[in-house]
Structures are given as structure tokens and as C-alpha cells.
């Protein structure tokens, strides 16, 4: 498996693509494929569908190269095409029943107080996320969310879709989408807590 070669001159690469240079196509697929596959995997959830999505997206991108404007970033443009292809995949998919997430939500006492005392996470988020191991933990825990929740969280909080778009793609009401996002964030917080709570409390 060859590693991704970084692209340092996008403008030249784009010119080569537009000229139909076969080596340039290969360079683009190798350089951007890995991260695009990760984006697709996070949205559609399975390796097989993610690969379909990435393949469709690259073919679609290569067909529309003349519409690529020089002032955009190639990576951003490809990212958008992959997200759209992934959303298309989700739209055509049969709805799965909602999985249970109760055990990952906060529990309350009869008087309405939290059962748990939350130990603080002592590092500011930017500092915490400077470390690769922490970024890896967060990605892994996102993957551990029940699928119907992970998808909403990824579309809203990571891909930046608005509530209406997300609701539309997933065939949910706006209100159900909001509730699901809120639960997904709470569940992710629960999954992250053992990793991020400070050792000294």
C-alpha cells in the first residue's frame, strides 16, 4: 500500500488533470483518497459503502473538472463531492430502527439531580486535541456511537449541515433530528469522560 504523496502544487496538478494526464489522476486519488475514505466511512458507516461512495465521487469529480474553479482548494472541492455522494447513499438506504442509547445518557435521582458527580476535564479543548492520541480516541468513540446517532452527529457537528438538511437526508422530523443530535453529543461525552477526566480531582 503506497503512502499518500502530499500535493505541494495544486495549480499544476489541476492543469495536468484538465489536460487528461493519467499520472495526475493517480496522484490525486492517492493523495486525497485516504482522508476522503475516512469522511465517507464516518457518514455511511460501512467500509463497502464508503468505498462505493469514494469511487463514485472521484469519477464524478473527474467528469466535472472543467467546473472546478482555480480559486477553490482541490481538497475542499473533493470533500464536498464525497459528502454529497455519501448523503445520496444515505437517502437510498432503508431506515434502520433506532438503537438504544439510554445507558450513555446522564442518569438522574428522583429529586432531579444528576446521579454522577462530573469530574472536570482539566485541559482546554484546543490543547487536549493537539495530541494525536486524543484525536484518535475521539474518532474511535464517534465510531462507537450507535449508528443512527453517529450519523446525525457527523452530519451536524462535523460536516456542518444544518438541522433541516440533516433531517431531510435521514427522513426525520426537525425535532427528532435535534433530539437525536443532543443525545449523540451526550453519549459521546460519556464515552470520552474516562479518557479525559483529570487524574487529580
Amino acid at each position, binding site marked *: *500500500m*503506497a*503512502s*499518500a504523496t*502530499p500535493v505541494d502544487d495544486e495549480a499544476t496538478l489541476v492543469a495536468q488533470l484538465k489536460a487528461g494526464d*493519467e499520472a495526475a*489522476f*493517480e496522484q490525486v*486519488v*492517492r*493523495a*486525497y*483518497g*485516504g*482522508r476522503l*475514505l*475516512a*469522511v465517507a466511512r*464516518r457518514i455511511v458507516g460501512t467500509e463497502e459503502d464508503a468505498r462505493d461512495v*469514494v*469511487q463514485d465521487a*472521484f*469519477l464524478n469529480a*473527474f*467528469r466535472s473538472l472543467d467546473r472546478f474553479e482555480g480559486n477553490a482548494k482541490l*481538497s475542499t472541492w473533493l*470533500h464536498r463531492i464525497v459528502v454529497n455522494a455519501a448523503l445520496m447513499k444515505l437517502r437510498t438506504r432503508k431506515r434502520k430502527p433506532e438503537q438504544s442509547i439510554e445507558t450513555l445518557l446522564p442518569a*438522574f435521582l428522583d*429529586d*432531579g*439531580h*444528576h446521579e454522577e*458527580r*462530573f*469530574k*472536570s*476535564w482539566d485541559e482546554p*479543548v*484546543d490543547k*487536549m*486535541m493537539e495530541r*494525536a492520541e*486524543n*484525536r*484518535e480516541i*475521539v*474518532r474511535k468513540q*464517534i465510531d462507537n456511537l450507535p449508528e443512527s446517532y453517529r450519523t446525525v*452527529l*457527523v452530519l451536524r*457537528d*462535523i460536516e456542518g449541515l444544518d438541522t433541516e438538511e440533516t433531517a431531510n437526508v435521514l427522513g426525520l422530523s426537525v425535532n427528532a433530528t*435535534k433530539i437525536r443530535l*443532543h443525545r449523540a*453529543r*451526550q453519549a*459521546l*461525552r460519556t464515552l*470520552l*469522560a474516562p479518557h479525559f477526566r483529570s487524574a487529580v480531582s
Partner: protein
Amino acid sequence: MKCRELAEFLNDYVSGELPAESRAHFEFHLSKCKNCHAYLVQYEVTIKAGKIACDEMSDEMGPMPDELVKAVLAARLKT
């Protein structure tokens, strides 16, 4: 407002959609309840952490499998 209700409204609070009156109750509770305050902070950190962790960093996302590279290139030539 109880901790339970505060947790229910977190979503609306962080997106600025909580009506003024509820917001006042919410913030009053927060000012008195350290535990809810810690929870709110962690809820916000969770949102940001997800965004940062999934930001495009090709090196961390694993490579493109060779067979998929070949499949994409072969499919391009067919179309």
C-alpha cells in the same frame, strides 16, 4: 429548574435558541450548580473535540487502499 431539565435544554442553550426567560432560569441554575456547569463545559468540549479530531489530516486517516486506487483509475478509463 432542576439538573434534569437543564440537561434537556443544553442543546438549545449552546445553539442560542433558548427563549430569554428559560435562558435566565438556565443561567441561574448554572451559577449555583457546579456539577451542571462541569457538564455543560464537557458537552461543549465534546462538540469541539469531534470537529477537531475529524478535521482533514490525511496522515491520520489511513491510506487509500491500493485496490481502490486501481478500481477508480480503471473505472475512469471506462467512462
